[in-house]
């Protein structure tokens, strides 16, 4: 598995898009930190970019890589190596190369700014952890979609739809249902519903850490009152972990059964 991972990573890290992605984060990091004198505002802006952008890039990269590497995957499948190792290796190669761009791209501006010595280091650290989680989750989801759909256009469409649903539509539906069922106790429903969306969960997790109650929103406030900040963070972090493990398990199962 590590052999496949190593070469997938080496291939992707040299692709032009990896540089573009890295450059974007470098630029964003420097601009936000150096042209903004309020550190907590910079973190919130970064959070808003990360929770939308990392899932999108993860989705697009994951689906593109697996479709373009199809013939090569066939060559690998004919080698004396377990199927699950091939797919796990490729998946981790993609996710790690993207996470690498994120961590380096934002890490350099942080270090230059001197965040390492400040109290905000943990907030930044959490930001990167959440970004990495979202990358792993959405790459896994999109790989699942590409394994289940022979047709590239369809697969690409489904993947974008999943991202759009979780990043935008979910919140809308959620708000509508809150308004419509205003008369009922919705606490439990809200708590459960936010667990089913990794993007929401990431946002809540960061806001709990930042302790900015004004920005928590309804779900965040509920989270805080139900679990408290500390337990709330543990619960959301472990749910994110589940969110990244389940699609990977599913991916291995699908890959095992599929014909190539």
């Amino acid at each position, binding site marked *: 598995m590590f*052999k*496949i991972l190593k*070469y*997938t990573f*080496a*291939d*992707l890290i*040299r*692709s032009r898009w990896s540089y573009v992605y890295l450059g974007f984060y470098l630029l964003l990091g420097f601009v936000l930190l150096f042209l903004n004198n309020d550190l907590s505002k910079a973190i919130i802006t970064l959070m808003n970019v990360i929770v939308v952008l990392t899932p999108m890039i993860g989705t697009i990269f994951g689906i593109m890589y697996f479709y*373009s*590497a*199809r*013939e*090569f995957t*066939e*060559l*690998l*499948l*004919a*080698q*004396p*190596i*377990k*199927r699950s190792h091939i797919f796990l290796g490729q998946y981790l190669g993609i996710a790690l190369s993207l996470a690498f761009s994120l961590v380096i791209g934002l890490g350099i501006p942080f270090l230059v700014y001197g965040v390492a010595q400040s109290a905000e280091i943990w907030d930044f650290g959490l930001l990167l952890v959440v970004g990495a989680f979202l990358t792993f989750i959405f790459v896994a989801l999109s790989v699942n979609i590409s394994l289940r759909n022979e047709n590239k256009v369809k697969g690409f469409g489904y993947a974008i739809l999943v991202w759009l649903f979780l990043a935008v539509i979910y919140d809308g539906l959620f708000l509508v249902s809150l308004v419509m069922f205003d008369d009922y106790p919705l606490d439990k429903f809200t708590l459960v519903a936010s667990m089913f969306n990794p993007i929401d969960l990431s946002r809540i997790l960061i806001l709990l850490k930042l302790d900015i109650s004004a920005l928590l929103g309804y779900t965040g406030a509920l989270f805080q009152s139900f679990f408290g900040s500390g337990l709330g963070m543990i619960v959301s972090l472990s749910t994110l972990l589940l969110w990244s493990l389940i699609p990977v398990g599913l991916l291995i199962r699908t890959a095992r*059964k599929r*014909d*190539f």
Partner: protein
Amino acid sequence: MIEIKNLHKRFGKLQVLDGVSFQVEPGGIIAVLGPNGSGKTTILKTILGMVHPQMGEIYFQGNAVLDKWEYRNDIGYLPQIARFPDNLTVQELINMIKNIRDVEADETELVNRFDLKLSLNKKLGNLSGGTRQKVNIVLTFMFDCPLLILDEPTAGLDPVALIQLKELIQEEKQKGKTLLITTHIMSLVEDLSDQIIFLLEGKIYFQGSVEELQEQTQQTDLEHSIAKILQGDV
């Protein structure tokens, strides 16, 4: 060497293999022929474990192989389409496959033979289709496997490379290896193959030598024999 018993494979509603059974003795070149969509590639991929059959058994060197992977140490496979990671160089790809198979292999002779020396440090994404096919050939033939499976090996090759490939295939046969080849180029079959397996609508229509097929169809060349079978005259 290979024994296939009652193999059935269906993709959705399409029955691709419908009770295929055959046996291949070690040594020699076996051409798997048939019209487009007759299941040639599917048979090869089933032997390699890439396609799961609904029914049937496959034995390689006396052992059942379905759902196993270790047996692939003894099989080399040349896929139909040669596409590799764009940003790796030819040398890196060769090292990767060597690394995965974890056995001794020396590609220098093959690299020289197919004139790939100058391409070794180029990225795979910048190579032409024919050059990629040559890389594909090097990857397959650099290992010492008793069985080689070649799916349309001539695709995209220029005449010089084609002659070199034919020589290479003959040399491998001299070494006592077994080669399973699918192709649509009948001259290649006539030049090389010791045995033909002819597939039609998911079943084996004929298994035997080129001469036997010509005799059975009362034709003097292979192309006409096959045309006769396909027109339903036999």
